């Protein structure tokens, strides 16, 4: 074998005094790290295959296992880091583009962590959410700019179509193909239970899940996989995917090896052929063209469903959002550069796009300045990690947020970032039946409901603390935010004062 210069990243540490050679680890590892040595009568490991997903660690009945980062390193170098060196090796070995998954792991500033939330003291008393009603319901869609009345003076209430959410959190797009049937079922059922929505991604909608249609956002992407009349009619809203935070400006590519059985039927393409989503929609080269797709979808569904346009947060996002708001879209979803993915070229993921915090603030500001903020609702996504991020996003101008990585973590994802291999030991990012069945949709659904319920409580606590009893009053309320340790320019883009001001 040729030398590839790649040394295993992790070490599998097995406490042989605890190991009972039950071989659970061996059966559980789709990467085939563990095996039993008949001669030695011992469990052994090939750590070069380990992705540090913790499946074996979690299931080891005697806690005999742990995975640690290998202390084996190159000579220390602040410029040529271990990753930088190994990536060169990988490309020199293969001549290929580096492929990764999940969100950007690099050290970029996380603005959420430099923003603090206000609370009432003495004046404007805080509200006890356990005692007082707190309204977290939001409606996403175009809002009228003025009140109109009929001949009898009655207010006309025929609004454009709205999505009604019991709490300002939706599950973001993840296609069937990138994640498993059981993962989709968990998300769909949790969305129904919590009065919110999940999103099909661009892989079509499995027939079994049509019954959750009232809580489903169906996506139309450049490849138009699985898009047909019934699919469009099934969804509560239609999302046009122009871009994704993890890989702005490039297309998608689900290899033919993953287009099997139900995934093929749901995407409506033959088994074994690649599912290629071109980088742009080749019928959309302008805002005018986008307007055309928006209206063709509205015509096809008789103006009954809001149309979402999802874009990645990029440099000119404010101007882009202004264009989208004028395209007839009802909702704009903005995906920041830390957003997750089932597979993206490493270089793109780690270097393209901008943080959602700055994008969101500048879009909200621009739409207000242009007097068209009412024309669209805003959904912010791209690494919303907890209820505090949700509250900060809403105060920066979002109507609601998208979560996906957080939802997968609730399902058991350990962020090992190897979704692209299709061997997810947690049954999430895989299509292998033996792995998929490890994710029990009853439990998955329950854990998602738990997560959202917990966040809802916390959001209400934040609101109560601020003396706000309706989430609508928090939207774009940047007086409730202060920055710490950030430069003037950053604070000016965020539209918030520094702490102490």
């Amino acid at each position, binding site marked *: 074998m040729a030398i590839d210069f790649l040394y295993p990243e992790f070490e599998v540490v097995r406490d042989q005094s605890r190991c009972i050679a039950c071989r659970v680890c061996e059966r559980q590892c789709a990467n085939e790290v563990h095996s039993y040595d008949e001669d030695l009568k011992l469990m052994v490991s090939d750590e070069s295959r380990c992705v540090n997903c913790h499946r074996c660690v979690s299931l080891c009945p005697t806690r005999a296992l742990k995975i640690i980062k290998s202390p084996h390193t190159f000579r220390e170098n602040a410029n040529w880091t271990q990753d930088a060196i190994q*990536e060169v090796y*990988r*490309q020199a*070995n*293969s001549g*290929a*583009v*580096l*492929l*990764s998954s999940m969100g950007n792991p690099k050290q970029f500033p996380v603005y959420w962590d430099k923003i603090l939330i206000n609370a009432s003291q003495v004046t404007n008393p805080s509200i006890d959410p356990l005692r007082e009603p707190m309204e977290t319901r939001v409606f996403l869609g175009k809002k009228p700019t003025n009140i109109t009345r009929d001949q009898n003076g009655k207010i006309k209430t025929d609004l454009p179509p709205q999505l009604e959410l019991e709490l300002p959190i939706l599950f973001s797009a993840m296609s069937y193909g990138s994640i498993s049937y059981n993962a989709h079922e968990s998300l769909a059922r949790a969305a129904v239970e919590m009065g919110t929505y999940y999103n099909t991604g661009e892989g079509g909608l499995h027939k079994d899940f049509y019954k959750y249609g009232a809580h489903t956002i169906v996506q*139309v992407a*450049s*490849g*138009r996989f699985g*898009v*047909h*009349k019934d699919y*469009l009619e099934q969804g509560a809203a239609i999302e046009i995917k122009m871009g994704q935070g993890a890989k702005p400006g490039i297309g998608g*590519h689900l*290899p*033919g090896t993953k287009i099997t059985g139900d995934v093929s039927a749901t995407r*409506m*393409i*033959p088994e*074994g*052929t*690649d599912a*290629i989503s*071109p980088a742009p929609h*080749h*019928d959309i080269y302008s805002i005018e063209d986008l307007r*055309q*797709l928006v*209206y*063709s979808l509205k*015509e*096809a*569904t*008789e103006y009954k469903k809001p149309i979402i346009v999802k874009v990645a947060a990029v440099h000119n996002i404010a101007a882009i959002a202004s264009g989208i708001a004028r395209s007839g879209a009802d909702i704009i979803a903005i995906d920041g550069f830390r957003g997750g993915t089932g597979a993206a*070229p*490493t270089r793109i993921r780690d270097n393209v796009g901008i943080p959602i915090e700055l994008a969101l603030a500048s879009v909200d500001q621009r739409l207000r300045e242009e007097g068209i903020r009412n024309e669209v609702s805003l959904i912010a996504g791209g690494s919303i990690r907890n209820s505090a991020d949700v509250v900060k996003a809403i105060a920066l101008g979002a109507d609601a947020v998208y979560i996906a990585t957080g939802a997968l973590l609730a399902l058991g994802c350990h962020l090992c970032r*190897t979704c*692209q*291999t299709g061997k997810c030991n947690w049954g999430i990012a895989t299509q292998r039946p033996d792995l998929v069945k490890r994710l029990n949709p009853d439990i998955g659904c329950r854990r998602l409901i738990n997560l959202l319920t917990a966040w809802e409580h916390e959001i209400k606590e934040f609101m109560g603390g601020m003396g706000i009893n309706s989430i609508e009053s928090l939207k774009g309320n940047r007086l409730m935010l202060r920055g710490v340790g950030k430069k003037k320019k950053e604070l000016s883009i965020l539209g918030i004062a520094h702490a102490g001001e």
Partner: protein
Amino acid sequence: MVIDSKNLDFQELNRRIKTCESLDITVSGCLGQRFLAAGLKDKNITIEGTPGNALGAYLHGANLTVIGNAQDATGDTMNDGSIVVYGSTGDTCGYAMRGGSIYIRGNAGYRAGIHMKAYHDKFPVMVIGGKAGSFLGEYQAGGVIIVLGLGSAENENIVSNFCGTGMHGGTIYIRAKTLNAKFPPQVRVREAEKEDLAKINTYIDKFCMLFSVPRNTIDDRPFWVLTPNTDNPYKQLYVQN
């Protein structure tokens, strides 16, 4: 039933088409109204004049006939039914169509048949009587595209540039004495043999019947067959990181 489309905007015209009780409808005086028959399932519609962009988008079984030219995005993401155009169409005709058929007597603009795909009993067919613009059949994943080049000179390039880039399924047939176009590496080009021609015979016959073109005016030039080199053109592009 005749609907006079004069002075009707696209929403009103579409509403009248959808709510019309008659299954056979003629739309007269059409002047650029967009999205006509979007997602429509079960009507036969003849359009006199020039329908606007996205005619028959997501078409689900209806039959559309245009006595005139069509504009951009005709039959976008069409699933079933037929579109017959007696003139020419604009750009992105049949984008991502999955089923049904589009017959165009004249020319098609740029990017016709991009990302056309077939699935199970769905098999999309596009026949272009004249020439096609650049990027014909880009990313094609299934179905058949036929370009007849009627009215063009023997050595004229009738499919322009970048035909079939990223193609990974389906077939493109080009009728030409000699092929002057340059094709991308994902495409294999060869002269059609009897078995190939047998596969498209019914489509050619239908074209001749629809537009009253004598069959022998088509049979006088050879056809070329374009198929993808592989089902997985981008397979070798990535390494796990």
